[in-house]
Each structure stands twice: as C-alpha cells, then as structure tokens.
C-alpha cells in the first residue's frame, strides 16, 4: 500500500501584513492519494496557492506538517513539478533550450537532452517551434512549452496553480485535453488549484472545496465521471451538471458569511 503522495496534518499558515496578522489557511487535514488528480477550488485569497507553495517546499507551515510520500517535504521539493499562471519561460532561450533546462542542470549531454526536449514538444503539439523564442509564441503555445518543461524531468507529482487562468475558454479546453491525455498515460499525482468549478470537475477525481479566508477544507466531492474523459463533450452530460452544482452549493455556502461580513 503506497503512502499518500501528500498529507496535510493540522496545517496552518500565518503571514504578517504590516502590524496585522493574516491567517491564510487553518487546520488543514487532507490526504492526496498517489496517482490521483485532485482539484482545489475556493474563493480568491483562501490560501489555495499557499497550500501549493508548502507542497513545493517554498513555504514552511506555521503549524502542523506537510508530508510528501510519508516524509516531510524537502525545501525546495525537487520531486514535484510546479506550474503557475505566470509566464516563466526564460526569454533569452529557445523553446527547446527552455524545455531541456532541467536536464541541462542535471548535466545531461546536449544532443541527448535536445532529443528528449523535441520528443516532449511533439507530445504537446509544438513540433516546428523548437528554435523559436518565447516571445514569438502565442500564450497557448507558451503554456504547452511550460507543460513540456515540467514533464521532461518526470516529476513524481505536479502542483498546478491556475495554470490555464490566462487563456481564453477555447484554448483552455484544448489544454485540458492535452493535460488529461498525458495524465492518463503517466498517472502522476496532480494537485490543481483553480477558481473555475467547471475546470475542476472536468479534470479531477476529487474536488476539495475551501472556505473563504482563513481557508479551511469545507467539503471533498468525488467526481465519478468515467475516464478517459472527452473534454469537449463532458460538459453536456447530466452528471457533469449535477457535480458542478454540488461544488457550487458548497462554495456558495462558504461565500455568504464573507459577504455579510463585508
């Protein structure tokens, strides 16, 4: 029996904001099974990104602990791939050199790493753009390149923080399809943060709903849609609509008191 890929045990994260103390998330207890696709939804500022930063070992919890494969997470946690909404390709490198950078850091020979980069670029549909620079690519293509760059070092798990947030609706669907196809094959654990309910239900095995700040786990909803999923058709299934509503009811309940407060 494999230990969960990630475990949050009584995790609380506090920040100082000037004289004020802000509690980003409070007493999070959550297990992420290895090989599963888990989405976290919640209102903005509920500590979703904080959670990923702790998984990545870029932040240490104020209280409680985060375990990766049963061990406390390393700082930084080099066994995970981390994707954010931001464009983090290096502008002075070609796409293939960007994708291959992790192999370059590990000291792999140039011919070998470029060959692997090209294979991955083919997987994400970027053949023909190996020698281009990031500024010459569209937003969607840069997303694909970043995905390829993360996949190339075969991380045991991936933390994704609204990775497709800046794309338009159609392009986002295309990226969902690309991501699901790759995930079906590799089955790496994915922790996916989003505020888009449809995106969460489309992709995940489980959706974790967070309450408004301080973020706490409000509900965990199993998404029993069959796999492999067809991203383009999924949205018309009655079950998809039902699940979306279930998630929304949880979110809505969490939002109301925050509104009254404001």
């Amino acid at each position, binding site marked *: 029996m494999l230990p969960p890929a990630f475990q949050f045990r009584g995790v609380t994260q506090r920040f100082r904001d000037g004289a004020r103390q802000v509690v980003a998330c409070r007493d999070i207890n959550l297990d992420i099974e290895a090989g599963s696709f888990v989405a976290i939804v919640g209102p903005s500022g509920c500590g979703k990104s904080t959670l990923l930063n702790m998984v990545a070992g870029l932040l240490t919890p104020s209280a409680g602990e985060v375990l990766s494969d049963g061990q406390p997470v390393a700082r930084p946690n*080099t066994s995970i791939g981390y994707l954010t909404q931001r464009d983090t390709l*290096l502008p*002075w490198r070609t796409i293939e050199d960007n994708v291959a950078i992790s192999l370059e850091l590990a000291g792999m020979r140039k011919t070998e790493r470029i060959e692997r980069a090209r294979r991955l670029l083919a997987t994400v549909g970027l053949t023909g753009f190996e020698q281009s620079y990031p500024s010459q690519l569209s937003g969607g293509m840069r997303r694909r390149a970043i995905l390829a760059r993360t996949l190339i*070092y075969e991380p045991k798990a991936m933390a994704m923080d609204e990775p497709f947030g800046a794309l338009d609706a159609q392009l986002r669907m295309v990226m969902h399809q690309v991501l699901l196809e790759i995930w079906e094959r590799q089955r790496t654990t994915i922790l996916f943060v989003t505020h888009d309910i449809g995106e969460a239900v489309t992709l995940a095995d489980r959706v974790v709903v967070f309450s408004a700040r301080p973020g706490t786990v409000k509900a965990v909803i199993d998404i029993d849609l069959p796999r492999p999923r067809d991203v383009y058709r999924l949205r018309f299934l009655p079950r998809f609509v039902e699940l979306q509503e279930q998630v929304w009811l949880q979110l809505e309940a969490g939002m109301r008191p925050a509104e009254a407060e404001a």
Partner: protein
Amino acid sequence: MTADTSARTDDPLAAEGALHDDRTIFGVGPGIWIWRTTVLLGILGLWKAASLWWIDPFWIGDPAEVAATIADWFARGTIWIHLWNTIWATLISFALGTALGVVTGIVLGLNNRLALVLDPFIGAFYSLPKVALAPLFILWFGIGIESKIALATFGVFFLIFYNTYSGTRSVDSELVDVLRLMGARRGQIIRKVVVPSALYWIFTGMRVSIPYAMIGVVVAEMMASNKGIGYLIQAAAGQFNTSGVFAALFVLVAISVILQSTLKRMEKAFIR
C-alpha cells in the same frame, strides 16, 4: 512626444530620412548627410572667419592650423605614443571597472544582509566626485599609467556596480523558484537566470561608463603625466597654443565616438 511626431510628419526633411530611403549610410539617408556636412562646413567657415576678422586667433585658434597640427602629429608619428597611452588606459580601466562592478553588483544583489550593511558606505563613495581622488591616486601610483587606470577604474566601477546591482535585484523571483524546484544549485541559478536577466542593465551601465573611463584617464593625464591626450591638451595650453588644444580635443572626440559605436555593435550581437 506628440509634438515630436507632428513635427516629423510636417517636416519635408523627415520624408527624405531613414524611414523612406533605402540608400542609407549609417542608418540615415543621403539627404541627412548633405545637411550634416553643410552644418559642419558652416561651423568651420564661421570659425575661420572669426579668426580672420573678429577675434584674435590667440584665443580661438584657427581651423586650418588645427588641421595642420593634427596632420603634422600623424606625419611625424608623435601622436601615437599619446593615442596609445590614452586608449590603452581607457580600455584597461573600462575592462577592470566592468569586471569588478559586475562581480560586486551580483554578490551584493544576491546578499540582502551584506547589501544593507554596506549601503551607506557605497552611497557616500558614489556621491563623491571621482576626479577629486586624482591627486591621491597620483600620490599612490605615480605619474605613470597606473594612476590613470586607478582613477578611471574607480569611476567605471561605480556605474557598472549600480547597474548590475539593480539588474540582479529585479530578477523575477518566480523564474528563480522554477529553477530551484528543478534542483538547480545556487551557482547554476546565478549563471542561467540572474546573469542573463541582468545583462541588459549591465550593457546600459557599460555604455554610459565609456565617457567616464575617458574622463578619469584624461583628468589624471592633465594633472601629472608626460604622455597621453590629456597631457597634449595641458602642454599645448601651457604654451598658449590654442590650435594645439583644439587639435587634441578633436582627437579625443574621435576616440570616444569609435569606442562608443564599437560597444553598441557588441551589444546588438549579444542581446536579442
């Protein structure tokens, strides 16, 4: 900005400029070059006229005499030792100041605590007019090329240092995090992210520091030396030879322009 663009479109000369003419020389069309030559000839003509009829050449020299002086320096070969000294000292100071400035800028840029500790000292040195240090350096290093290099290096160093420091500080922390999560060591992050993204700032610093390198060298040469363009200026002025002063100034302008344009070309090759 708006006034500038409207002036451009109204100006019939602009139509003959770089944008509309493919027969360009150094980026501008022949029309512009004709005008530039006209302006130059006008200035020389006025100068000559002034020295003939209005002002005693003792004060303003004579363009013909200036040209003759420069021609004579080259013909007799006496200019080479001075040219060589000034250019060599400038280049060495430029290279030395750049290397020291880049290294210090990166080290302090990556070291918050050290930067905070040293901040007031660096600020104090920065605000000091560097030429005020010339007598001290001459005292320490003598009247040879060393004192010139010391003064000019000091000036270049501060400019490059400040630019590199700012460039290093403005590196996107998310780019750094991405590489850290890939298991990059500190040295690798510096080589692959910090230095490349600071390069633009470094080049800007290099471009503005070329005149400073020359200022340092020439000032030190004027104070105490027996070689260099600065010495030529000082020696000619000492003999009340105004044309000689102008001749040396023209040579200085030529050196500075050549160095600047060489760097610009290097920068274009480096930065996409």
